[in-house]
C-alpha cells in the first residue's frame, strides 16, 4: 500500500481512513515541476487531448505545499537534487513520488562510465512509489502510472480488471 509509510494521525479509524484514501486517490494533485523533456509529455497529458482531469489529477499545483504527487519528470542533475529534496520536504503528507521516464528511473542514457553530473535515478534519494518507463513515456503511460498510483493509495478501483472479471 502506498499509504503505509505515511506518518500517523491523532485519531486512527480504519473506516474513515479508507474513505479518506478514496478521496485522495481520486484527487491527486501533482506538483508543477518538470526538470527535463519528460515534462513535455507531462504537459501534453494535462492538456485536452489526453486530459488527465478524467482521472482527477489535473490540478497541477505550482506550490509544493499544496500538492500530493511529485512527478519527477526528467533527468535529475546533481545541481538540481538539493532543490528536489527541498520540494519533497515541503510537500504535506500524504505524498507520493512518481519517477517518469528512464532518466528518473535509473539515469537512462546518462548511465555511462565517467559521467559526473547526473543522479542515476530518483530512488537514490526519494521514496519512489511508481515507475513509468519510456524515453520519454507516452502520455498514456503517464495516465497508466497515475492509475497505478491510485491503486496504491486506495483499494478502490476505477474499473475492474477485465482479465480477472
Amino acid at each position, binding site marked *: 500500500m502506498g499509504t503505509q509509510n505515511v*506518518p500517523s494521525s*491523532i485519531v486512527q*479509524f480504519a473506516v474513515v*481512513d479508507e474513505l479518506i484514501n478514496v478521496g485522495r486517490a481520486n484527487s491527486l494533485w501533482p506538483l508543477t515541476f518538470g526538470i527535463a523533456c519528460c515534462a513535455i509529455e507531462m504537459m501534453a497529458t494535462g492538456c485536452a487531448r489526453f486530459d488527465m482531469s478524467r482521472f482527477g489529477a489535473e490540478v497541477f499545483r505550482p506550490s*509544493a505545499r499544496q500538492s500530493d504527487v511529485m512527478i519527477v519528470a526528467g533527468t535529475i542533475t546533481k545541481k538540481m537534487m*538539493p532543490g528536489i529534496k527541498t520540494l*519533497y520536504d*515541503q510537500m504535506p503528507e*500524504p505524498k507520493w513520488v512518481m519517477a517518469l521516464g528512464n532518466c528518473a528511473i535509473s539515469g537512462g542514457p546518462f548511465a555511462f562510465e565517467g559521467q559526473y553530473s547526473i543522479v542515476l535515478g530518483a530512488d537514490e*534519494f526519494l521514496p519512489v512509489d511508481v515507475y513509468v518507463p519510456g524515453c520519454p513515456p507516452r502520455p498514456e503511460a503517464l495516465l497508466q502510472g497515475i492509475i497505478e498510483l491510485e491503486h496504491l493509495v486506495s483499494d478502490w478501483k476505477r474499473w475492474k480488471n477485465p482479465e480477472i472479471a
Partner: protein
Amino acid sequence: MEQTFSTFLYQDNVLWIAAFTLGGLAFALGPIAIVYLLMPNETRQISGKALQAIECAMDPIGDPWIRYGVVFYLYALIFLAFDVDVLFLFPVAVAYNDVMFESSIRDFIEILLFVGILSLAVVYAWIKGVFKWERKTYLRQ
C-alpha cells in the same frame, strides 16, 4: 395582526439566533478540527527544509529585511489630505439644500474656512514640491 414583543417571544428569538450562530461556528470550525484530528502529524523529511519559506526549491539569497526608499509616504499623506476634504464635504453637499441653511451666509463662510484650512495641507505639499515627479535617491545598504 400586529406582532407584540412579549418576554417569551424575545427569548425564543434569542434561542434561534444562538442556535444559528452555533451552527455557523460548527460549520466553520468543525472541518478544521476534523482535519486536525485526521491529518498525518508530520511530513517525511530528507533534508529538513519543510519550513523554508521559499517554495521554488532554491535556497534564498540574502535577507528580506532590506531598506528601501520611503518616498511613497508622501503620497499617502497627500491622499489623506484630499480624502478628508471629500469625506467631510459629502455630508455638507447632502445637507446644504435643506431649508435650515437657506439664506444664511454664515454657513457658507464656515464651509469656506473649513476647506481653506484643509487646503493648507495641499498648499504646503505643493510648495514642498511633492507633486513634481522627481526620482529621489537614497543611500541603500
